[in-house]
């Protein structure tokens, strides 16, 4: 069918173009528009908008696509190793592409307001474009190596974005921490990838998924677990989770971008992308389930005691990512991916709302924001309420639908412990979400602050920030009802035969837990004369444990500074200075010393030397005469 092939080729070009546009914008801004912020922003927005348009076109036109489209070019050949680049268009990648482009576009529009007047405005948009391009290529990758490459580039651009305000020590340090900790995971990823390449010789994800590589099951488990290492790093799971809350040092739109749909979601996306491959190993999936569960619960507890509004959302991001991983590991392909999409929407919404509040009140502390009169800002407050409801999983917001799907997959597992953990997660999520909402909406000293003008300092480009937020809130309302078409769409990708709706008791149970949690939060924070201390904070030890992130940072700090810095590294340095150089120096010293000894031999009286000379001559004569 020649017509069809022409059409599909056109779509492939669209895919390439969608990915390339932001890269072009990056280069253009970096070299030509560094000193023209306005033009830089325009170029960057235009590029992302182009990608968005292409993504939507692809989404609309490929809706009835039977088989994935792909276009592959050879990037490099070395011996038998062929590394290729390309675009791979199927249900998952197209949906993800649309979500990524959408979030990128909205965040960039929002940044017009948020970042206005920043000296590094053009640089900001350059990095944003780089990020968008890398993320798009990652999403479209047909092969594991390409995925890894753009995975790393995403990490790089997140490093640059988190450390965007590099004059602040904390910001540059947070960027470094993010990069190094994700790198730690990536090392495992790379090892797994190389193992696959060496043993299987195939890098194509489709080929890996249908078992064309002919790997043994043990090898699959080992490489899957290694690749999970990359996921753990990128998606900030236990034990590499602590970089994510620190990454809040970046500008808020960056947080919104990184921690909703793009960077951290890349880990989940990888699992989804290679879902059939990973499904071949039960052990690896169980490992993933455990990791997801532990991270989900741990970070939820951390969120319960934080005073920093962005930190709360950061912890909740980890927690929700853990939730997605649980779903995927439990076999719920659709549940995990769907939660990824809904989460992308409402988490971006929450971050952007938080950004508006921070922008208005110049503080990250939710108590300060609440007392500053945040309830006066109608748009962010309403939208944040929508986002919070979605995060908690209240009908009819999008979070409800996806969370129910996740719980439904957990029900299907034999071991009920996972379901219980999931329900506990639901409870905690609702609790810390509404704790934050109540603190901001019903601040403790309500009476005094009323007098202040709530819209103080709001003479910023409000519109640029408000419209993306409103759009996202709308998406959050709608997305929950799109479960069925998305499911149909994704069905082509993998054997999605999991339950979307659990048993009848599941939805009431989870909703009941949510409302119970909200009630607890209300009692502690919302009602008049509430003490505004949570039940956790009453137990000092536990509060301390949660506030210090279960001492994970301390453990990592100890490992780096003691084991690595002062242990291994110092040992190497000392070995260099003492052992190797010491050996060399002693060699040199020995040469000098032996020279001295010989020189002393030459300093004896001439007559002794004369004697030696004679002796040598006559000795030689004798020798020659005897053996000559």
């Amino acid at each position: 069918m020649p017509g069809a092939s022409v059409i599909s080729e056109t779509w492939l070009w669209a895919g390439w173009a969608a990915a390339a546009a932001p890269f072009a914008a990056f280069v253009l801004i970096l070299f030509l528009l560094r000193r023209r912020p306005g033009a830089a922003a325009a170029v960057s927005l235009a590029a992302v908008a182009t990608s968005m348009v292409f993504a939507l076109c692809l989404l609309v036109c490929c809706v009835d696509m039977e088989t994935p489209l792909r276009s592959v070019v050879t990037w490099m050949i070395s011996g038998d190793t062929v590394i290729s680049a390309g675009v791979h268009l199927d249900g998952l990648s197209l949906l993800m592409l649309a979500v990524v482009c959408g979030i990128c576009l909205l965040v960039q529009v929002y940044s017009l307001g948020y970042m206005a007047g920043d000296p590094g405005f053009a640089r900001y948009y350059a990095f944003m474009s780089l990020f968008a391009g890398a993320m798009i290529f990652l999403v479209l990758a047909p092969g594991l190596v390409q995925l890894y490459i753009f995975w790393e580039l995403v990490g790089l651009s997140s490093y640059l974005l988190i450390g965007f305000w590099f004059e602040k020590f904390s910001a540059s340090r947070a960027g470094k921490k993010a990069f190094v900790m994700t790198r730690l995971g990536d090392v495992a990823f790379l090892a797994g990838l190389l193992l696959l390449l060496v043993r299987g010789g195939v890098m194509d994800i489709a080929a890996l998924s249908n078992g064309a590589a002919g790997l043994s099951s043990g090898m699959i488990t080992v490489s899957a677990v290694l690749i999970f290492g990359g996921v753990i790093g990128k998606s900030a799971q236990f034990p590499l989770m602590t970089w994510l809350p620190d990454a809040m040092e970046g500008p808020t739109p960056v947080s919104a971008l990184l921690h909703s749909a793009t960077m951290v979601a890349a880990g989940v996306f990888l699992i989804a992308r290679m879902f059939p491959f990973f499904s071949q190993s039960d052990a690896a999936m169980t490992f993933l389930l455990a990791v997801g569960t532990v991270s989900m619960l741990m970070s939820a507890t951390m969120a319960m005691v934080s005073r920093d509004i962005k930190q709360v959302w950061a912890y909740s991001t980890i927690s929700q990512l853990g939730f997605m991983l649980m779903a995927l590991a439990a076999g719920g392909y659709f549940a995990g991916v769907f939660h990824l999409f809904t989460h992308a929407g409402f988490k971006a919404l929450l971050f952007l709302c938080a950004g508006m509040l921070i922008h208005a009140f110049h503080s990250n502390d939710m108590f300060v924001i609440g007392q500053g009169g945040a309830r006066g800002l109608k748009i962010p407050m309403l939208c944040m309420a929508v986002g919070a409801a979605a995060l908690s999983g209240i009908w009819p917001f999008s979070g409800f639908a996806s969370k129910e799907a996740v719980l439904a997959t957990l029900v299907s597992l034999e071991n009920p412990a996972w379901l219980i953990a999931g329900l506990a997660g639901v409870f905690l999520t609702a609790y810390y979400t509404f704790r934050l909402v109540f603190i901001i909406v019903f601040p403790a000293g309500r009476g005094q602050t009323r007098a202040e003008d709530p819209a103080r300092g709001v003479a910023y480009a409000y519109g640029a920030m408000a419209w993306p937020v409103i759009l996202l809130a709308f998406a959050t309302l709608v997305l929950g009802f799109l479960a069925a078409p998305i499911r149909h769409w994704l069905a082509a990708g993998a054997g999605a035969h999991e339950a979307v709706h659990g048993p009848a008791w599941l939805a009431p149970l989870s909703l009941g837990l949510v409302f119970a949690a909200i009630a607890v939060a209300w009692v502690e924070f919302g009602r008049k004369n509430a003490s505004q201390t949570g039940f956790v904070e009453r137990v000092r030890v536990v509060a301390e444990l949660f506030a210090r992130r279960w001492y994970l940072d301390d453990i990592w700090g100890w490992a780096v500074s003691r084991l690595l810095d002062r242990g291994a590294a110092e040992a190497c340095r000392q070995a260099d200075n003492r052992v190797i150089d010491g050996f060399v120096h002693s060699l040199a010293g020995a040469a000098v010393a032996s020279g001295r000894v010989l020189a002393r031999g030459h300093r004896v009286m001439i007559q002794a030397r004369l004697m030696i000379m004679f002796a040598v001559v006559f000795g030689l004569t004798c020798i020659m005469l005897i053996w000559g």
Partner: protein
Amino acid sequence: MQLHSAQFPVLSLILLVCLAGLAAVVLLPAEKKQAVKYVSTVCSAVTLGLSVYVFVAYDRALGGMQFVEHLQWAPSLGVSYINGVDGFSVPLLLLTGIVFFTGVLTMWEHDLRVKEFFAMFILLVTGVFGMFMALDLFFLFVWYDVSLFPMYLLIVIWGSTNREYGALKLTLFLLAGSALILPGIVYLVAESGMGTFSLPALVNNADFSPFAQKLAFFLFYVGFGILAGVWPFHTWSPAGHVAAPTAVSMLHAGVLMKIGAFGILRVGMFLCPEGWAFWAPVMALLATIGIVYGALAGLRQTDLKFVIGYSSVSHMGVVGLGLAAMTVDGVNGAVFQMFAHGVMTALFFSAVGYIYDKTHERKFANLGGLSHVMPVAGGYFILAALTGIGVPCLASFWAELLVLLAAFDVYPVYGAVAVSALAINALFILRVVEKTCFGPVNPKWEHLPDVSFGLGMPRLVLAGVIVIFGIMPFLMYETIQSASMLLISGLP
């Protein structure tokens, strides 16, 4: 080893241009500093152009030795003047051309004994060019030594921190290396019984016993390995890098260390394949230790140049690991890493050199916020750092990928250890970036100028090369492949 004669002796032309530049610089009066600089720039630009021509004109499909020139020189000794390049030396010629050109431009503001400096510099480069193209063991050794001895003067006269120590250590180490190489060459030539130093003749016709190969390869490995920074013979390199002036550091870390690896490849592996196979596990072990060790030792350094010096040790370990794998991937990756690391280190040192010229401070604890003061210079520094970390789409990523791939194939344990060193690498290089470029601005440096367009040029060239070959690695791999396939398929 197939030889394809040159229509036009372009290789000798490169040497001649260098020598002409050297003569011109020597003949100019010492006061005319600008003239000396212009002459050196023209000389380096022409050599760069010629090496680019060689890179482009090299016939990848044909492979083998091309542009071969053959002249009898001393028939009674079996010495002849043979030049030729294959897929291994073409990238390195290009690298030398690039680093030569950018090095000369980097020293544009240099003002102390300009004439002598550039004369020595050009002499050094001549030796390097000659070494990369020589196909006669005698000439190869002579060029090798020609490229070593100006180093001592360059460091002692124009160096900085602890220069006498650094220069002496470097020279003694490298001469110790020569002292092993020469017996190795003579032994092999004597063993062949052919009475010729010609590498193609020896490779094609000589039949060395396994013992001779093992012995000779060991000599070559240690002798050239000292120059290549193989652990534990690497300690000269950080000390030397630190002491040397910027352009010399660039050339030194960028090109000279490659000479060592290239020597192992060209002499050791071509002549003694069985020795290579015998010693490969040892090479892999030492290389892996070097990779991890360099990164770890770099973690504790406080001097910018020391950090780069140790990262060089780590990166040259990657080269060693690739060569030890004895596969097409490994050799490809190793040669590409030589190229990529050369350009990367040159950029690194030139960025550091700029920072040092302006601040006279190399302890990075005292720097800070330089990205704010000099965003472009800081940008080059960061780009070099990212290349050093092995960020994809920058040249050295591809090299590391292939080397690690080969290592996983042949030595899985070493491969795993080497991979984990990537994380340490990231940690220590980013730490330096953070301390140098980020953080609050030190008020002392607030008014420093950013890098000007002229001085930025060499850095731009280097950065461009890194990015071009990072995005289009096939440009380089096709060339390297044409040689490595032949080498590996010729193995017993």
